[in-house]
């Protein structure tokens, strides 16, 4: 396709491109300035090399131009994010709680903003939820240098009893073993099933939204999901891990639970 035709294609789809950019910015809760910045980046990328990215679209494997543009803009966003902030990754805690928690963690820990500054950047309807999440946000994983005594005074005490430390250590060991057993079980699945688990648990996609990619009805995917979870549970149980061990590892107040008569880890109780 000639450069002139590609330019026409670009202009004809400009409204679509703007919609895609707006959706991605909204999903990642970008500020107004960040949105404007990213929109420019996308347009420059699409226009570069005589609309080279558009010229590379073939349609051979069945993708629509709209689908291709979404993938291109999303990829541009990931590139742009890495360029600005490096490969900063949200914690597992934030990933488990969705985009809002990821954004909050990013603003507080990566950008070192205060909670009020973070809330000021968020949409008004998001602020209350941000404050609620902030109360549960675990401390950052990377230790920061302590610059003055005032900051030190604001940090919670890290002291704990020897018994608590022992229980925490036991819990860590069991958690590592469980992770290993689960990883092995997932590794034994078909790649398509492995991907389904990753999209559902890591990316938080609903089964209904994955169904189209898997070319099936959502109800069929629900059944498939149940079977996969059953298979994983069976494999974990055959490795000697039951519900009580998993619950103990996941229990945030585990030390107390143990003292209250919880069955405890006994990893090979089977």
């Amino acid at each position, binding site marked *: 396709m000639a450069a002139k035709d590609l330019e026409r294609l670009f202009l004809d789809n400009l409204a679509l491109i703007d919609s895609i950019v707006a959706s991605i910015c909204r999903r990642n809760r970008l500020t107004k300035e960040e949105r404007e910045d990213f929109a420019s980046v996308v347009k420059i990328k699409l226009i570069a090399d005589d609309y080279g990215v558009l010229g590379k679209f073939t349609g051979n494997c*069945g993708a629509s131009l709209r*689908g*291709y543009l979404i993938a291109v803009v999303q990829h541009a966003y990931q590139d742009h994010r890495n360029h600005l902030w490096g490969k900063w990754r949200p914690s597992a805690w934030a990933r488990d709680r969705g985009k809002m928690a990821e954004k909050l963690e990013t603003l507080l820990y990566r950008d070192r903003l205060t909670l009020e500054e973070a809330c000021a950047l968020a949409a008004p309807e998001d602020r209350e939820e941000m404050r609620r999440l902030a109360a549960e946000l675990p401390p950052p994983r990377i230790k920061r240098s302590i610059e003055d005594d005032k900051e030190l005074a604001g940090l919670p005490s890290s002291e704990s009893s020897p018994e608590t430390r022992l229980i925490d250590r036991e819990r860590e060991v069991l958690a590592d073993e469980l992770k290993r057993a689960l990883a092995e079980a997932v590794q034994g699945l078909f790649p398509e099933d492995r991907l389904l688990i990753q999209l559902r648990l890591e990316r938080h996609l609903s089964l209904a939204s994955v169904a189209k990619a898997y070319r099936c009805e959502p109800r069929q995917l629900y059944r498939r999901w149940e079977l996969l979870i059953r298979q994983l549970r069976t494999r974990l149980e055959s490795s000697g891990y039951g519900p009580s061990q998993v619950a103990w590892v996941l229990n945030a107040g585990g030390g107390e639970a143990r003292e209250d008569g919880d069955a405890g880890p006994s990893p090979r109780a089977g």
Partner: protein
Amino acid sequence: MLDSIDCSALEEVAAFAEGRLRGAERERLIAHLAGCADCREVLAETIEVGADLDAETSDQKVADLRPVAVLRPMRSEWAVRVGAVAATVVVVGSSLVAWQLEARKHPPSRSEWLAEMPPARELAPHIWGGIRMRGAGEAGELSAQSTEIGALLVDLEVALAANDAGSASDVLNRAATILDAAGMMDDDATMLRSAAERDIVATRTVMATQLPELQKRLVERFDDFYLDLGSFAGEARIAVTVGDRDFLTARHTRRYIAWLLTQRDRALSPAALEALRLLSSDTTTAEQRRQAATDLLQSLTS
């Protein structure tokens, strides 16, 4: 991967997100996606942003929706599939024999068993009773599902050999229900249901074409021990129903039952073990054998 991802890869990700990527390209991409977090993020967001835009569009243009545009590709794909099937004629029996021989060493082949039994025309009327006995509701756990699929394969062979369209349709629909419940073989369930809609000649043709690969997938997805046990239980039930004692006294049948009784780790239920003992005993009456065959299948599939 992200730094090196190129436009053709993005096009494939988009095609996958839209459910349009097929064949080897699809398999290759899935294998890559399962190991690449960056590309998974592109995929996940492509799916979600696509849904966002769909929602916006549907809000704005509800009146313009034309369902016929959605249906058209499915119709043309179906036409191609029908054409391909119609062009292929393969004998049914050979595929079943091949599966049985490859799948398991221990039990005799289904053909060996069927060779011991009366002609299919005499057996076919008893198939429907078997399906009703195993139930038409939700299919259960993997062992029960595997057993029932094994029994249904016997029923299918008999029904097709006897040109019994009604029984074949019932068997195919029941098998599709189990595959649906197992949730791992959606395309195969669809294929079985569409085969069930056809006349008996077309059903035979379709199944002859599809069965060899289907059976391989069944062995992968279900438990082959129970697939074989289900086949045996299905044949035993038909044999005792038509009063065919030779089937149970045949050397390979006795060998198989003896082997089953040693499989302690499979934890067969006491009812199933008792039924097997009764089926293999020389002193069992015909009525007891009939009851034992019924009990065996019921205990394995309930």
